[in-house]
């Protein structure tokens, strides 16, 4: 079942500082964000939106720990429990000799799962259609999309956007995709 579209009010900016300040101002004014879009990672924009720190660190920790466990238990099983082999009189269970492989497997499984976990948290997968509120949002435009709820004060939103040098303002909904539009730009 596709979700019903969320009505949005969008401001388009072309400068990261303006976007950052406008985002802060919107949050202070109590607007509810649908999302903010930026062509590159802008430092502090996530905190300005009021997003919590990403939980992807837990994925790394858990799967890193899993990798470590697999490495240690696997090597212990193979070289001590299953078939202790005498190589030059070395111990069958030498912890220092297990360190390199333990480290590598911790990093390997932790790292690969971090990548997969990050994509899963972002709901990104091959074949997903990207929804763009503005054609330039992966190039040089920043978009602030506010939810038009019950008490949405459009006048106030316009005032904040204008004060921070917004280039365009649009009424959109969350199903809108600028990539489907034939011509560029065009105010709503």
């Amino acid at each position: 079942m596709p979700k019903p579209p969320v009505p949005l009010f969008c401001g388009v900016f072309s400068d990261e500082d303006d976007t950052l300040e406008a985002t802060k101002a919107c949050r202070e004014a109590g607007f509810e964000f649908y999302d903010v879009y930026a062509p590159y990672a802008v430092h502090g924009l996530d905190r300005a939106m009021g997003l919590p720190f990403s939980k992807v660190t837990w994925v790394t920790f858990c799967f890193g720990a899993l990798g470590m466990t697999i490495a240690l238990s696997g090597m212990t099983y193979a070289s001590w429990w299953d078939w202790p082999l005498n190589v030059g009189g070395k111990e069958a269970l030498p912890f220092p000799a297990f360190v390199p492989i333990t480290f590598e497997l911790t990093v390997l499984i932790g790292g690969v799962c971090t990548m997969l976990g990050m994509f899963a948290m972002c709901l990104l997968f091959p074949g997903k259609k990207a929804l763009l509120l503005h054609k330039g949002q992966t190039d040089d435009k920043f978009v602030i999309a506010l939810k038009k709820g019950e008490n949405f004060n459009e006048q106030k939103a316009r005032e904040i956007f204008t004060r921070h040098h917004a280039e365009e303002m649009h009424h959109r909904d969350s199903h809108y995709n600028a990539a489907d539009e034939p011509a560029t730009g065009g105010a709503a």
Partner: protein
Amino acid sequence: MAVHVYSVTREPLVVGKKTLHEITHDVCHSIEGKPSMLWWLGFLTTGGIAAIGVITMFYQMYTGIGTWGLNKTVGWGFDITNFVFWIGIGHAGTLISAVLFLFRQKWRTSINRSAEAMTLFAVLCALIYPTIHMGRPWIGPLWIAPYPNLRGPLWVNFRSPLLWDVFAISTYFTISACFWYIGLVPDLATVRDRAKHWLRKIFYGTLSLGWNGSVRNWNHYETAYMIFAGLSTPLVFSVHTIVSFDFATSVIPGWHTTIFPPYFVAGAIFSGFAMVLTLLLIARKTMRLEAYINDVTLDNMAKIVLLTGSLVGLAYGTEFFIAWYSGSLYEGFAFINRATGPFAWSYWIMVSCNVISPQILWFKKLRRNPWVLFVMSIFVNIGMWFERFVIIVTSLHRDYLPSSWAYYKLTWVEYTELIGTFGIFFFMFFVFIRFLPGIAFGEVKGVNKFARHDDHAHAEVKHA
């Protein structure tokens, strides 16, 4: 308005006042238009060399390892020299993308993408050598998995550095590939949104996973990027440390030294940066990327080459000192033999290329001269190949028993395969710069304002 603090002593990282769109365009146009004649020339030449190399490898597998010049005394020569050489080349990419990221070296943004690609290609080239040295590589998988036999399940020896190496290299390759791909996703989305042809839309659309620049996604993305940098930093140091264990844990004079791990890591970074310089100096000229790979980038890279080159020089000296100071007769002989024995020529090529040639980089003028850097980087590449050759061959060719002393001479098969891997390496690089954005413009945009003193002009506000 946010307050920016501009440094008067720092130079901008992007030369010329580029707008964000211009940055996208500068990088993307090289993968959007028709390829230039220069690209075709490079693509076909390196492809041809690669093909000759691959054919020679098949000839060698068909005929046997006897086609190499190895003998009973020098049982390890060509294969491991090239293996360590290529793994070393692969160290710069992750160092640039991970270590320099953690140190907040913003100039890394213009070179990290291609350096990381180079890492992957170099590691692939490195993997060729242990594979073809197996003789019958198609039964290789059986040695990795425990397989049933009369004795019960047969396990590999987890106490052996050679096995650690297998884990280290495969982890390094996988994690570097993941890190590289994560960095590519936002840029691929940009390329997707510029694409006109349906095939390009599908290709870049699939690879970019539906990325649309949402800050909710950037939040996870930046955290994951930081984690990857944190994981890759110890990884990059661990890989060449473990490669050095292949030698250091043996009892061969000349190999059995505790200095090997830091010495190998410094050498790897040294050779990797030299190769990055070689490639990027060509790429910046042919693809007109002087605004991004500019004087500041070259200057900083040259400083790292100078530092690591001097570290390597210090290691050469320390090895000699310890060989004498330890009082070990065999250790002392191994080192005197290196510098004055039948392979002295290779030792002195190594010293002059690795220790003497980078010393010109003490001068700022020379650090910023692309021609000087290019020639110097070629010297370092040669020197670092010889370093591995010297370590491996000179330590083996005169062992404890003078009657078994031998000389090692490369055969045509070895020469062709070596040149062939260079073909494979450059061929992959040519394919990469044609189909994927060679500069991480998403990251360059983030540092575009760095140390720029311009007032930003605002466009007129259009009301909806």
